[in-house]
């Protein structure tokens, strides 16, 4: 993957980049192995815009968002590359510099609201303790702010809820509390790391809508991390698709859905259940499992599961390259929609590869998945 800045500035103007990530690498040293959880990722987040990061479990998206914020703690972690926030370099900067940004300028909503709230601390204190430490507001002001915040995230009877402990609330309520915590200091950048994965389906939409609404009202930038391409479809301006620690395709949301190039993006797209399909249609799962990040294959890391993969894919890792549209990047030798890609799929169908057969079937039913 290239070291040069792969920005999408051309689309929205260079001046409004809030966060620029360049060739970020996060490697975990486990025994003799190096687990490359994030391996050369470059991204730009623009002021007030939403970037979706999509990928399976284990694709490195959670580690990526934590690396950008710099909140990984384990001693065996090595982070390199560059993250600039509003012109400030974050990689390698001191704890005290980071602490001033955390919670105040950038904040995070975690995946599991059941474990991300302290079970022995009252909700009221958890919502405002960082407001007090960052802005030095008094106890009574903090209480007022907490009530306001809980109202914003639509928690009924906020005065009463302040005195609650987390276990006295439902999962959806707790995630609302987590959002209130993240919003408390008015951050300019919000990371939402699979904010709805641990919640009921009915609650998921409420939480996502709440996040989008707050993001718009506050003109806040958001990084929405999810495994569900369906979630980001209507809620993001741009999408980066991650696989095995790398970005494999990146584009504005509409471009990505109209003109997806990477077979992995296509597979993710196909695995969204669609109501237009007849009942009992078999869900299309991606064959196999993500590769071991401690022992990545020499070529494209998706090759083993890809319906299109040929020898070139197994031998040579594809670089992230632009399409005709400079803001649309993908890393594939035999992209979806190309003649080479079509021929490769035919070859693999002949060879009897299961993923190729289902992809070919899918392509005839859905018209190419594009």
């Amino acid at each position, binding site marked *: 993957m290239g070291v040069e800045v792969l920005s999408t500035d051309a689309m929205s103007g260079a001046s409004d980049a809030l966060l620029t990530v360049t060739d970020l690498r996060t490697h975990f040293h486990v025994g003799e192995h190096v687990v490359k959880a994030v391996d050369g990722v470059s991204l730009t987040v623009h002021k007030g815009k939403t970037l979706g990061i999509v990928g399976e479990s284990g694709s490195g998206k959670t580690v990526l968002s934590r690396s950008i*914020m710099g*909140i990984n*703690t384990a*001693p065996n972690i090595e982070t390199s590359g560059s993250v600039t926030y509003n012109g400030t370099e974050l990689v390698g900067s001191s704890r005290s510099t*980071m*602490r*001033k*940004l*955390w*919670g*105040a300028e950038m*904040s*995070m909503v*975690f995946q*599991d609201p059941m*474990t*991300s*709230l*302290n*079970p*022995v*601390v009252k909700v009221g204190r958890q919502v405002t*303790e*960082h407001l007090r*430490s*960052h802005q030095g507001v008094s106890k009574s002001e903090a209480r007022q702010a907490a009530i306001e915040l809980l109202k914003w995230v639509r928690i009924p009877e906020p005065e009463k809820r302040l005195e609650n*402990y987390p*276990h006295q609330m439902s999962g959806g309520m707790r995630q609302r509390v*987590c959002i209130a*915590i993240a919003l408390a200091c008015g951050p300019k950048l919000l990371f939402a790391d699979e904010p709805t994965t641990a919640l009921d389906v009915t609650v998921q939409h409420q939480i996502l809508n709440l996040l989008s609404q707050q993001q718009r009202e506050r003109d806040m930038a958001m990084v929405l991390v999810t495994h569900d391409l369906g979630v980001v479809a209507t809620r993001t301006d741009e999408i980066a698709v991650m696989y095995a620690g790398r970005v494999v395709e990146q584009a504005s949301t509409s471009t990505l859905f109209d003109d997806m190039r990477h077979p992995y993006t296509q597979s993710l797209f196909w695995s969204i259940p669609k109501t237009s399909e007849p009942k009992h249609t078999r869900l299309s799962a991606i064959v196999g499992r993500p590769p071991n990040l401690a022992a990545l294959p020499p070529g494209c890391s998706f090759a083993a599961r890809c319906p299109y993969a040929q020898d070139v894919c197994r031998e040579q890792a594809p670089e992230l390259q632009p399409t005709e549209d400079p803001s649309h990047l993908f890393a594939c030798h035999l992209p979806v929609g190309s003649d080479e890609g079509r021929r490769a799929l035919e070859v693999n169908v002949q060879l009897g590869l299961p993923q190729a057969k289902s992809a070919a079937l899918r392509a005839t039913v859905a018209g190419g998945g594009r």
Partner: protein
Amino acid sequence: MLKVVVARLVRLVGTLFAVTFLTFGMTALLPGDPVNAILGVETVRDPAVIAEIRADLGLDNPFIVRYFSWLGDAFTGDLGKSWITDQQVMETITQRLPVTAELAFLSIILALIFAIPIGVLGAYKQGKWQDNASSAGVQVALSVPNFIVGIFLIWLFAVKLGWLPASNWSRPSTDGIWANLKTAIMPASALAMTQMAIFSRLIRSDMVSTLQENYILAARSKGLSDRFILFRHALRPSSLSVMTIVGINFGALLGGTVIIETLFAIPGVGFRLINAISQRDIIVIQGITVFIATVYVVINTIVDLLYAVVDPRIRRR
């Protein structure tokens, strides 16, 4: 909450039955006739005198009869009179228990004052030199017997520096709190040493696992200071094990500070208990044991109730 207390009281009664019965049984099994102890070695062994004393003490009755007659009296608060000194057992306890209790309490407080920062630091700097140094220190503290610590303290602070009295006990009621603390601080420190080591280890290991919780990462991502996270977020959920051991140790200290009490000539419960045992003064042994058992169970009940204060999730159960 009320249900818990009632259940605890029922358990207390059961425990006391078992404790009193067992102690009574043990003392009955002790070799040597208590009458010998009362009369002393020099006395002429006149069978008539011995028989009279036996009858007087009720020693001729069967074991069960003696047990229940003692138990009946104990229920009315009468733990009997010493066969040797003629002192009421209840009086002995009210005189001596405050001394031992103060010692136990002081030593636990001292131990916690040092154990909490050491344990927290060890967990925070896990695997770094601070952690290794405190582990090594704790290992030393654990392996030195408390009377050795006591002797060292006497040598240093009483003999060499002359800051503190080497032994004896000043009661706060007669000599004032300051004089009292001056006599209490050395024995309490000697007792605190091992406990400090144990407490700090427990806090460290609980804290290590607490620090891996998601809510600690979430607290970090809010930009809170490490100190705030350690003491205001992580310490409470990491204190359940240490609370249990504090409760158990407090009970154990009430009955078992014999060596330190002897070393510092402190008129505590343990000192008296050892005397009573060597004199076959069964009534005193019995009374003190029951009293300690009661306090022990009460303390452990308080600890159980404190769990709910520390961790609100327990309150619902």
